[in-house]
């Protein structure tokens, strides 16, 4: 290359602002991280956790019975009221029982279909069924609850079907609330169990068969234990959503659940409502703590 003329010395182009900022940022990963985190943390920690904190504070305030204004002085009166009034205790127990019952029913109904999707259906059918289960999950919550109001009504489908048999619709009430909750939250249980079943490597099942495990034995000793984290994950939704719902009980029954009592109290006595909403919050935190031990968070 000796014969080639020497390239004229071109001064290096002045780096653009973006490049200089970038070079500096490249050298300071902490700054980049801070930039990424600034807005999300502001939102989640300041706005969201902050409002949970405000809710918590309000629970220790009280309402002046004459002016109806919130008195910002520390008091435990709300909690005393909640603990000593029978209604609140009954409603809490009723709601938790309903949430557990709904969760259990969802597990029983979800397992077979999830099993069919994951281990029996052909890949094509599986794909179609996943979509078939996901879609109703997202179809308007309110309309799904409302559809049961229509179905269970006095002149509804069930009544029409049962009339020839001399029966009538069970109507609105606790049974209706149970059915509607199960109906609404079922896909939340099917999807994690399906994912959990799909993750089990076939080699484990073959190993179980080689060791003499019959179908039922393999299911009970191998498959089911491996899907417990998935069931726990699904149960977070079925349990939590039931615990805080006030729409469904209002639509298909006249029974009061935690949500209804809170909702009614918001306008009348905000600090008491705030204190009572700490109850589902506390129950849910305990629940999350328990299911975490079953590996629920890894199966979400």
């Amino acid at each position, binding site marked *: 290359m000796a014969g080639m003329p020497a390239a004229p010395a071109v001064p290096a182009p002045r780096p653009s602002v973006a490049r200089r900022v970038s070079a500096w940022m490249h050298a300071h990963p902490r700054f980049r991280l801070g930039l990424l985190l600034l807005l999300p943390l502001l939102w989640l920690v300041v706005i969201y956790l902050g409002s949970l904190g405000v809710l918590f504070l309000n629970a220790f305030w009280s309402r002046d019975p004459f002016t109806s204004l919130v008195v910002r002085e520390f008091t435990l009166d709300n909690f005393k009221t909640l603990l000593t009034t029978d209604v609140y205790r009954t409603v809490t127990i009723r709601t938790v029982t309903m949430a557990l019952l709904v969760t259990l029913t969802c597990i029983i109904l979800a397992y077979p279909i999830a099993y069919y999707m994951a281990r029996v259906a052909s890949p094509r059918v599986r794909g179609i069924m996943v979509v078939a289960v996901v*879609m109703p999950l997202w179809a308007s919550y309110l309309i799904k609850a409302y559809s049961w109001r229509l179905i269970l009504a006095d002149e509804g489908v069930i009544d*029409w079907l049962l009339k020839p048999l001399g029966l009538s619709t069970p109507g609105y009430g606790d049974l209706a609330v149970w059915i509607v909750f199960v109906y609404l939250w079922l896909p939340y249980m099917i999807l994690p169990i399906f994912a959990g079943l799909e993750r089990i490597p076939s080699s484990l099942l073959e190993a179980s068969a080689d060791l003499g495990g019959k179908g039922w034995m393999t299911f009970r000793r191998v498959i089911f234990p491996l899907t417990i984290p998935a069931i726990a994950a699904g149960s977070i939704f079925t349990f939590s959503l039931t615990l805080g719902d006030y729409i469904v009980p209002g639509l298909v029954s006249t029974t009061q659940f935690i949500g209804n009592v809170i909702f009614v109290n918001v306008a009348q006595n905000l600090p008491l409502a705030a204190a009572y909403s700490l109850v589902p919050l506390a129950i849910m935190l305990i629940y999350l703590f328990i299911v975490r031990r079953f590996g629920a968070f890894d199966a979400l």
Partner: protein
Amino acid sequence: MNSGRAARVGLRLATALVLAFVYLPLTIVVLYAFNKSGTNAWPPSGFTLEWFSAALDNSGLQQAFFTSVMCAIGATIIALVLGCLISLAVSRYQWFGRDSISFVILLPIALPGIVTGMALSTTFSSLSVPLGILTVIVGHATFCIVLVYNNAIARLRRTARSYEEASADLGAHVFQTFRYVTFPSLRSALFAGALLAFALSFDEVIVTIFTAGGVKTLPIWIFQSFRLANQVPLVNVAGLVAILLSVIPVYIATRISSEAVSGRT
């Protein structure tokens, strides 16, 4: 898989029953939207499209529909930005509190809706923030972040960091790397997350009631019309629209994510 014949038939039957349980109620609402008589007595008396034109003429319903669309768009944009930022921070950096933040992101949907609703409404009233579309958007965005985050983080975990390193080695600066390398591989996941966020926001009622003040979103309009006998046919039509507007985005979203998944394996 060694399941007995009887077990197989039983499974098939159970699956069919559960699917029927899931779909029949939705079908019934759809049928009622075309019911000639304006009541909800079964069976429907005949076919009509009259309620659709009535719904189009109802200004309250229209207003509620557009309010819902606006809230959903606002919440989706915020969730998209925040979810994308935080998924990058979680997948590409090590930091103190990283595990707890994924828990905090999940909290708004893991906690009962009434807790989130109460917390926000108590805070807004303590700070004297007037309730309205903006407060609804704040509430919706809070629980929509997780949808974008989940989609984005799943994608980021599958894409190798080495592409980004290669891009930097080839002289791209931080923003170019994001624009030409990270973002294109994230795009469809973000789109899927945004569709889910839109659908969830469009549909939400529990938190919305607490943060809306006098504003009526479509679900609030439906909720308040349940008990009005003369609104029954309109509620059915609005219900059909609400079902379609949450189901269609989700259908597209599942198609996108399943294509992305199968394209990679």
